[in-house]
């Protein structure tokens, strides 16, 4: 039940988790679409967790990262534990050089790790 994106965004449900995949550069339009897909997906499906999958994003500046982090926090406010997945080492080195704020960001290298960790956390929250 993937929603084919008009703007490089695909939202997929995996178990309790909504996976939002970005397959393009994060221009402003793409970010808006990602925000909409994530927040509407979490609200309408009642997902307990969300993943922003950015493996295919080749470049990211500090402003775009801040926007991505904001989407994650919004989804958290809607009650979904949210993780960012697939940041490339080169992007991270650049973000660190630009002194971005990363407090509270949950991030993983790959989908497997993110799904396992979020699953454990969601179970923990409900235990």
């Amino acid at each position, binding site marked *: 039940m993937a929603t084919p994106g008009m703007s490089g965004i695909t939202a997929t449900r995996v178990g309790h988790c909504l996976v939002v995949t970005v397959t393009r550069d994060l221009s402003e339009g793409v970010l808006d679409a990602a925000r909409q897909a994530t927040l509407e997906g979490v609200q309408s499906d009642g997902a307990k967790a969300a993943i922003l999958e950015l493996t295919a994003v080749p470049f990211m500046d500090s402003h775009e990262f801040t926007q991505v982090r904001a989407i994650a926090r919004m989804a958290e406010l809607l009650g979904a534990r949210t993780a*960012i997945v697939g*940041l*490339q*080492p080169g992007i*991270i*080195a650049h*973000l*660190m050089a630009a002194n971005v704020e*990363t*407090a509270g*960001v949950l*991030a*993983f*290298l*790959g989908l497997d*790790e*993110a799904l396992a*960790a979020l699953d454990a956390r969601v179970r923990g929250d409900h235990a």
Partner: protein
Amino acid sequence: MSRTSIAEILAKFDLRESDFQRIRAAAPVLKRQLDDFIVDFYKWMAQHREYQVFFASNPSRLERVKQLQRVNWNSFLDAQVDDAWFDARRHVGAVHAHIDLPNEIYFAGMATSNNLMADRLRRAGTEVKDLDATISSLTKLMYLDAFVVIDEIARINREKIAASSKALMEMSTPVTPIWEGILLLPLLGILDSQRTQDVMNKTLARIAETRAKVFVMDISGVSAMDTAVANQLLKITKATQLMGCETILSGLSPAIARTLVELGVNIGEVRTTATLRDSFELALRAVGIDTKRLSGGGA
């Protein structure tokens, strides 16, 4: 070496075709006495400590070097300064660099050779026309020969230094997997911003490669840390978090603990321990290994 750069360098040493012609004209006199010249050269050489070092225990090497020298001076006296001539001199330089011959004995040897040859030309009488000009041409070519050899020795030494400093840089950040999902980096010596940048890049690459969950950075061997470096280390811990990998700082000394607090670092964000042992225990627990059972018994 291209034709133009040979012309350029000959111009710098003020060597013209007339110089080469004078040397070629005088060559038969010197070639005839070459064996005698080499005997005199080694009489001089035997007075110096380097003779003991390079030849005393190795008479067959002495014979071989004499043979090479004969070939070398024959081509020198032919005075055909082309690519092959430069290559031959560079080869001499490479051999000298290989045995670590001190520059002083090489230069002294060239000066001695120059004097020995000039003496022979003076004694030759009427056979050498234009004696003063011939000696001066010989000296100029001698300088060029010595320059090419020494330049090659210097180039080889520069290469050695570059290679070893690269090796040192590699050795200074050994990010090593020590357990499934755990990377360890023991940092030693002095940290500067270039090295912390190198640490950051290597660490991120290794995490991507090994998919590590925990990164233990042991700074017990770091002699001094200023606030800028402490900031850089904290950036590394943040960066690894963006790859889903937790960093544990181990081996904090009292002085470094003080630096971190005075920086106003929120210690809650970074896990730190005083000893590597404690860090390792935390790391094992983070990847889901029961350390009590590992230590045997599990009381």
